[in-house]
């Protein structure tokens, strides 16, 4: 009887969650798909059906290749940076004594609001870095990185890394700490150096966490525009217009909701494909690791 009541209660709660998901996620997706086939401007009561015109327009847009290139650059730089910094900081901290205190210090940038981070970094790019660049004679650093088409995206990635790398570091640090100490000790006794230790033990053992960090980085690059909006507004001259920014720009700044949503649908399809590819790759690597092990 108790078990029955428990099951009924759980079913009711589960039904509530499914309803909420249906109403707040599934229905808007269907509505969005519908709007992407119209020329709706977000204001007019009428939505004229235009078929797949929005989709073909986006793919044939003269800026399409540039937008995809910038997005891919953003994804690659952010992913590589998060993994490298995450592992780098985690491995360094593993060797240290006051880990708790340092953990707090290293995680601090992640809890600062994005807006505050961006304002802070704007001043660094405007005043501090150019001064350091001029002092050291580094030409690329002697100018405001945000004002150049070549370096603006690097500046955006740097700010995002400052904000997100602590998160990656925490995930990877926790995973590294979970590796049995005797495994590490055995490897060292057999003469493994740090690189060999990382390559043959630490990286394989933390591979699932590596997958999480990679997915986080790619998801952020595909679906976040806070940093770009605040620091560059997609400029200078479109140099930081990622796919998601273009979706936002066309929908909210240009009042072309139909077109923006079509871009959003294509972006969602690309994101799902990328996610599936990563999942397949990580599963394959893990399976091969189990077979080898």
């Amino acid at each position, binding site marked *: 009887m108790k078990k029955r009541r428990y099951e009924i209660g759980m079913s009711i709660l589960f039904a509530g969650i499914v309803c909420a998901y249906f109403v707040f996620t599934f229905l808007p997706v269907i509505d969005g798909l519908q709007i992407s086939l119209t020329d709706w*401007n*977000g*204001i*007019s*009561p009428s939505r004229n059906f235009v078929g797949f015109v929005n989709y073909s327009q986006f793919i044939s847009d*003269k800026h399409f290749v540039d937008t995809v290139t910038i997005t891919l650059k953003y994804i690659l730089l952010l992913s590589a940076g998060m993994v490298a910094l995450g592992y780098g900081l985690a491995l360094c901290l593993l060797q240290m004594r006051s880990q708790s205190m340092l953990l707090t210090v290293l995680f601090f940038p992640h809890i600062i609001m994005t807006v505050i981070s961006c304002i802070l970094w704007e001043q660094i*790019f*405007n005043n501090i870095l*150019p001064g350091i660049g001029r002092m050291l004679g580094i030409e690329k650093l002697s*100018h*405001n*990185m*945000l*004002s*150049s*088409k070549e370096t603006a995206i690097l500046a955006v990635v740097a700010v995002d890394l400052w904000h997100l790398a602590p998160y990656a570091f925490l995930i990877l640090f926790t995973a590294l700490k979970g590796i049995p100490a005797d495994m590490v000790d055995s490897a060292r006794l057999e003469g493994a150096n740090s690189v060999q230790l990382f390559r043959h033990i630490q990286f394989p053992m933390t591979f699932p966490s590596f997958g999480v960090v990679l997915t986080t980085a790619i998801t952020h690059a595909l679906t976040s525009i806070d940093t770009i*909006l*605040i620091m*560059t*507004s997609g*400029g*200078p*001259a*479109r140099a930081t217009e990622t796919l998601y920014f273009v979706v936002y*720009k*066309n*929908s*909210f*700044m*240009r*009042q*072309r*909701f139909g077109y923006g949503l079509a871009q959003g649908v294509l972006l969602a399809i690309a994101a799902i494909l990328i996610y599936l590819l990563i999942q397949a790759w990580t599963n394959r690597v893990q399976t091969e690791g189990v077979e080898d092990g």
Partner: protein
Amino acid sequence: MKKMMAFILVVMMSIALIPECFAEAGDGVVNVEFFQTTYSQAEIIDQIIADFSLIHPDIKVTQINLPGDEADTVLANRILNHDVPDIFNYELSQTLFDMIEAGILRDVSGTAYADCIDAAVANQCMYNDKLYLLPMSVNFMGVFYNVEMFEAHGWAIPQTLDELWELCETIQGEGIIPFAAGDKSGSNLAHWVQDVIGVYCPNYIEDFYSVFNGNMSIADMEGIEDVADIVIARTRYCQEDPLGYGTDDQIALFANQETAMYINGSWRMSKLNTRDLAFHYAVFPFPGKTAEDTQVMSSVDFAVVTAADVSPEKQVAIDTFLEYLFSDGARYFIEVSNAPSAVTGIKPDTSSYSLLLPYFESGRIFGMPSNCRWTDATYSDYTAALQNLVLTGEKKTFYEEFNDALTDYGMPAVYIH
């Protein structure tokens, strides 16, 4: 028992999440929402609302004020969800006409507060012979300069373009940056270049019409090469990396006396006025090739619209507030912002822009070229083309991109002078 308590807690938390907006104000007080889309004027409106509430305690006006560009996004979202604010400030644009066509905005022609508006300014705002947009102030574009710095160095106000560049050379020679630029904010650059287009392209209205129609390209537009040259030249006389600086940075550079001048519109004066300046500023018009060619760009600045679909009780409250806003409220607004007034009978302190008054008095003013009803998409691409010109100095690419900005999105639905 524990499970029951947990269930009750969950239900109570769920009820607490129900939005408070379902509850109407009690005790006969009517709520009116003023949605501010330009955060620089929020403080002025706050004071007006506070003064109004002393006289009309039965009407509670609340200003919703969001920073930066977020207000536009939130407004767009709210309109999507049929949650139009009771009153909000907006601008003359294609989007405004889209909203009028969608029936979102109320026709205020013939109301007592609409009759307070200067006829010439009201005429600019008419749509199909009806008034939806209520302007309170008009704006102007000009070159803001540090009066004490000019006097101390004996620099004269330039009357022609050549004199302006000579002045910039002189200023640079004395180790001072002539202009503060804020090109990261696309609108700063875009608005200023519209001023230059109006002065240097005598047939800009007809020529834009021809470009829209595909009968000519921007490269053939009379005066466009002068415009491009002026943008490139100005980049030589501003601080390094102008695309890394936004509006606030631009004003800070000028306010901190790191530059002698900055080019912007009167809509930024209220931001400048809130700073504790150690000097006086004044404005002169961006000069033409000759003194006779010089004109001033002026358009509707602060203006409000009201929602069409409100209850009769709320409509009365909105009308009461608007009557106050366009009388005592306007007096305060103009006094603090110093902007030229669109409301009759209100004279601002024009000492900071006295050099522009002869142009207003003699009719040597023109509206924003984008008032040829460019779409938001056109404006956005035009801005990107300008930023590229500042970066690269390549005029041919600028003409191509500007041309595409005009032709890619078709001719605007409404085309007026």
